[in-house]
């Protein structure tokens, strides 16, 4: 009985000592082995979700700009001032004459201004003749209507260049007229 008790006591002591091992602080060797591991699968899932979010919310028209053309509203026609004198539009005629970017004939329907060799010179002339303080050669108010009349075969890029020259010279009432129109 005594022997049994002793042996049980030994067994109990051994069990207690094993159980106590779990509560003891880890040794340095054990701590080095138990490092944190990342779960790559969920991380890649999240990365793709973020990628798609930014893709969908991104501005896809980067690299593009627009010229704003105000469309005249027909309902506003009756609200014009009946005593206002009609302004004669300044007409610019353009025609593509070659395959190059600058191969374009530009002509302003106004004595003394006539032909201009480039769109940059068209801008200079329009800018020089815009009425503003300190400009004695000013002829046209900034809201003076300007009609751009390209020939039917004029390339779109030349039409846009002419429009850009007018807007660059700060004219506000620029219109594209049907191809080959005789003008006013």
């Amino acid at each position, binding site marked *: 009985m005594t022997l049994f008790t002793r042996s049980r006591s030994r067994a109990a002591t051994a069990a207690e000592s094993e159980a106590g091992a779990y509560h003891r602080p880890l040794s340095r060797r054990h701590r080095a082995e138990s490092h944190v591991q990342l779960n790559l*699968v969920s991380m*890649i*899932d999240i990365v*793709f*979700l973020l*990628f*798609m979010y930014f*893709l*969908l919310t991104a*501005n*896809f*028209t*980067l*690299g*593009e*700009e*627009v*010229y*704003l*053309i*105000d*469309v005249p509203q027909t309902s506003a026609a009756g609200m014009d001032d009946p005593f206002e004198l009609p302004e004669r539009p300044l007409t610019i005629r353009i025609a593509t004459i070659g395959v190059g970017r600058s191969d374009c004939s530009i002509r302003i329907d106004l004595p003394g201004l006539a032909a201009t060799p480039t*769109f*940059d010179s068209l*801008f200079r002339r329009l800018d020089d003749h815009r009425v*503003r303080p300190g400009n004695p050669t000013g002829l046209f108010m*900034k809201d003076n209507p300007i009609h751009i009349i*390209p*020939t*039917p*075969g*004029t*390339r*779109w*890029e030349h*039409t*846009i*260049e002419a*429009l*850009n020259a007018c*807007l*660059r*010279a*700060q004219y*506000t009432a620029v219109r*594209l007229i*049907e*191809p*080959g129109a005789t003008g006013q």
Partner: protein
Amino acid sequence: MNLTPMIDMTFLLIVFFILTSQISNVEMAEEIELPEPEHSVAAEPDEEHRVVINLIPDVLDKRRISAMRLGFRSFTPDAAGRASLRAELLEAVQRDPAVKIDIRADRQASYSEVYPILAVASASGARRVDLVVAASLPGSAAPPGEGDGP
């Protein structure tokens, strides 16, 4: 083999490719080479309330327009096609009165090909018609003060 993350990834990739292909088709027709005016005073586009009309150039002769594309719908550049386009634009304006129409045309397109579509867009009652160009390269934009009003 763990199939769950693989299926996750596959579905994500499918959705990604579907969305990107649709966006590129609807908004930006890659066949169109936009004009790049020198010293541009064009403004940044407004992304909201806009309808984009892509004028697709003919493969053999870029001066001609082979189709007009509005979203997923394509129209022939003849009188019947323009009438259908006008009906679509009128419907878009009725749905959203603040809608703007962006017109993207190839730099080599003839003015006689583009003008009828401009006329259709103007007649649709849209608040504004915008002509889309390529953004100016750094240094080629107009100097500050030009084109922004006195």
